[in-house]
């Protein structure tokens, strides 16, 4: 099977690239090591968080750091990419943005304020936090502390309250006539098989449970919410049916409800990754999970195929072009033929495209001299997103890089991870299609 474009990585960059490639009618495959990294992300998408106005901030950033991925794109490219993303997830996993993609300010689980650009449906009511908010936590769920959040907010002049709900008490597990024990177990969030000694509540389990019992929760909370403007929950309000759940809660409480992202696994991230992956499959794209790119072969400056380790054997996948969106430290970049990657320990930055003819010198940014630069390490590319060496020579002409695999930026301190991923992913797919059409 030969593909037009082989995308390596299922982060935000890889998935956006896949959708754009499919939109352009390319035969597309996405190869991923496992689940999408989005599953541990908050679901908010940052464009540039370090400045009040992200666009002014990006302008300043580019002037200061011409090697920044944003400097490879026109402002218009970024704008288009964000609009494309919003359009793709519409209906299934809706995202919201301000006029002109300006920043939102939202409270964090620790009661601080942060900025972000795109908000999922569940978090949109968090923007511009109101003075009176009730923060709801769940007893026994240790990944979110409602009191901590309220306290943090109150330090900055708000008057928020917190409450912890005991789901076990409110479930009303009395047997109704004609109901079998098994059916009660299905209603019960905390159904435990008898052998178990303790309860292991995780976010997913609570989310699935709340899909069933949210009306009881709403009933319990109704007397508590009279004097507040909004109600905050940890981001565990439903897995598949979260839109219904949120709407239901809002209607029966008569207040707006928002979710606060907390420790992974993160429901907002999982919902987004599911939505994007389903869409890719629906559009005819292929998704390989648990497939490790262990080597690549090249002829001249053309990557001819990648070797992918799957159950039992190594598969060859051929593409006319490749989009490398494998992320940074955790992503284990592709290595060229003859390079053994299989034994590489996770977390070690082995190098970008260093193989028989790639050396340290040719890919300087991949090996920072100081630890402080580590967060900027990645693959150097030209304006066409093709990997280049120090002299600016194109190393692989049919490979386009996207997302955090790119050198020259620090997604964490800048608050630019999501924006760079979407914009470069989109751009890489555009460039790939242009290259294929000649």
């Amino acid at each position, binding site marked *: *099977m*030969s593909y037009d474009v082989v995308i390596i990585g299922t982060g935000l960059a890889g998935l956006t690239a896949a959708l754009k490639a499919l939109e352009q*009618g*390319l*035969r597309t*495959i996405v190869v*991923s*090591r*496992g*689940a999408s990294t989005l*599953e*541990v992300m908050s679901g908010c998408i940052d464009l540039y968080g370090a400045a009040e106005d992200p666009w002014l901030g990006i302008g300043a950033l580019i002037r200061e750091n011409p090697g920044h991925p944003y400097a490879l794109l026109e402002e218009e490219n970024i704008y288009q990419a964000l609009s494309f993303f919003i359009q793709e997830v519409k209906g299934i996993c809706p995202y919201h943005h301000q006029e002109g993609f300006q920043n939102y300010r939202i409270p964090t689980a620790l009661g601080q304020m942060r900025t972000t650009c795109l908000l999922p449906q569940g978090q949109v009511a968090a923007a511009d936090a109101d003075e009176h908010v009730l923060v709801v936590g769940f007893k026994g769920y240790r990944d979110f502390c409602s009191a901590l959040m309220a306290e943090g907010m109150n330090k900055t002049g708000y008057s928020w309250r917190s409450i912890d709900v005991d789901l076990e008490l409110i479930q009303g597990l009395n047997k109704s006539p004609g109901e079998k024990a*098994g059916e009660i*177990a*299905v209603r019960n*969030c905390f*159904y*435990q*098989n*008898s*052998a*178990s000694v*303790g*309860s*292991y*509540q*995780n*976010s*997913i*389990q609570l989310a*699935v449970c709340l899909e069933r019992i949210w009306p009881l929760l709403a009933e319990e909370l109704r007397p508590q919410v009279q004097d507040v403007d909004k109600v905050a929950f940890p981001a565990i309000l439903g*897995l*598949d*049916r979260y839109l219904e759940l949120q709407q239901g809660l809002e209607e029966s409480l008569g207040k707006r409800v928002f979710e606060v992202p907390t420790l*992974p*696994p993160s429901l907002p991230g*999982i919902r987004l990754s599911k939505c994007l992956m*389903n869409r890719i*499959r*629906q*559009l*005819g794209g*292929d*998704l*390989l*999970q*648990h*497939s490790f790119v262990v080597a690549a072969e090249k002829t001249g400056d053309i990557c001819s195929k990648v070797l*992918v380790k*799957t*159950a*039992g*054997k190594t*598969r*060859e996948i*051929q593409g006319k072009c490749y989009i490398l969106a494998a992320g940074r430290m*955790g992503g284990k970049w592709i290595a060229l033929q003859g390079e053994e990657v299989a*034994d590489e*320990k*996770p977390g070690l930055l082995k190098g970008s495209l260093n193989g028989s003819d790639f050396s340290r010198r040719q890919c300087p940014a991949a090996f920072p001299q100081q630890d402080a630069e580590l967060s900027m390490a990645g693959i150097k590319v030209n304006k066409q997103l093709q990997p280049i060496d120090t002299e600016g020579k194109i190393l692989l002409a049919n490979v386009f890089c996207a997302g955090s695999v790119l050198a020259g930026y620090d997604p964490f301190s800048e608050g630019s991870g999501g924006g760079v991923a979407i914009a470069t992913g989109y751009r890489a797919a555009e460039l790939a299609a242009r290259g294929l059409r000649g």
Partner: protein
Amino acid sequence: MTDLNEIFEYCIKCSICQSVCPVAAYDAGFPGPKILGPDLARLQAAGEAGKNRTAELLPLLGMCSSCLRCETACPFDIPVARLIRRAEQSSRETPPTSLFFQGAFRRLRDKMLAHPEKLGRIGTALAPLANKLMGDSAVQKLLSRALGLEMEQPNNFASWKQCRRFILELSSSDNQRIAQPPAISPGSEQSSYDNRQVDRWAEADHSSEGCSGGSDENNRGDSAENALRTRVVHRVENQSGDGVANRSDKQACNPAVNRLRAHNPKLLYFTGCHVNFYQPEIGTAFLQLLKTLSIKPVIYNSHCCGIPLLSNGDRTGAHRAFLRNIQLLKPYVEHGYQVVCTCPTCGLALKKFYAEELGTEDAEQLAAATYDYAEYLENYICELEGLIRPIERSFIFHLPCHTQAQGIGSANLNLVRLIPGLKLGIVDKCCGQSGTYGYKTEKREVSRGISASLARQIKEQSSRLDTETVLTPCSSCGYRISLECGVRAEHPLLPIWEAAVK
């Protein structure tokens, strides 16, 4: 990264496995794959210090359904389910003494479930009686009470007649049914089974590299490819259905592109118990499809893959079954045969479980030669496109866990998409049946909980597409889906057969 005693140290506790585990989502008593896999392994490695916590966790291991979603999702290649399986096998040596009688009956039930082959032989011989009996609600109640066996909607055994049709299909096309290892030694291949196994292009090449297919082989295979292509009589214009991009890319027909494809297809079809005893029509469809593609397979319908033994706690028996299959298949693999399965679990067993459990070179060799039917047919997409006629139907396509675990992506789905005019909805949740897991009373609630969320996905799609048929390559998923949603579940080969052969 091969030593199981060190491998768990690569786990960074990112919890992605926890979030994909279907059991953890429905059982608050189940700690989840991260805790039972790498965490427990760390505790056990700590010895005395981890003893108390280890003792708490060991009894929970049996709730793992072996869907392998954790391994598929793990970005660090940690064999999470394998660690759980290892821990379970080592803890099984001391069975709980409480509930003696119930325990004895449950062991009897596990034994039954572990031997689908024996069950199948009896069942098919007495099909009318067995099916009637199993369909009876009183019998079902009795089984549930006495044995802890939940058979609300049992699979019907294929009748002797149906099996006979399948066997006729085997014999009519010079296929060879193997029970004993063929006495083939390298070099004597031609003489030993020439009369039974028609090997048309055998004289061209005897190397056993058929599985990997080098570029030079492809060149030599050109004439054969061309010969095959001339048989493709009519070509239907591929219409894009349901927003899918037009797939009739001429590139796919270029032999140089089909590196995997041997010019001299040596194929061994591993049928598996479901085809042998319950739905021989899947096997018949596959064989007829292969016949249309001028591929003459060797049939291996002698033994069970052995996974039911493994998942019902009979490790020794499982290893015996694995070794037997490996021994019987080895001569074929050595002669360059590609082993093809139509059941995702059989395929995964051959690709992954045998090598993991036995760790032998033979097992790895077999793993490298094993293909899912869809993965195999990917190399014949060009011919299939020519053969397939449009069908005006809608299907919901289910991607089973064990297909995903094979790392073959949507190969199954892509194959169905070759049929023009189809409307497809896609669902990808776990069905909760997990082979024999869903038949057990103590696992019923969890299993049903998992099913319910897939059922909802299916119902949404079913009303959107106005269809009552779900395609799933896994028969055990199919069983559960039809039980939960009241829809028909079919193997994807059946519509492909309908479009290409019927």
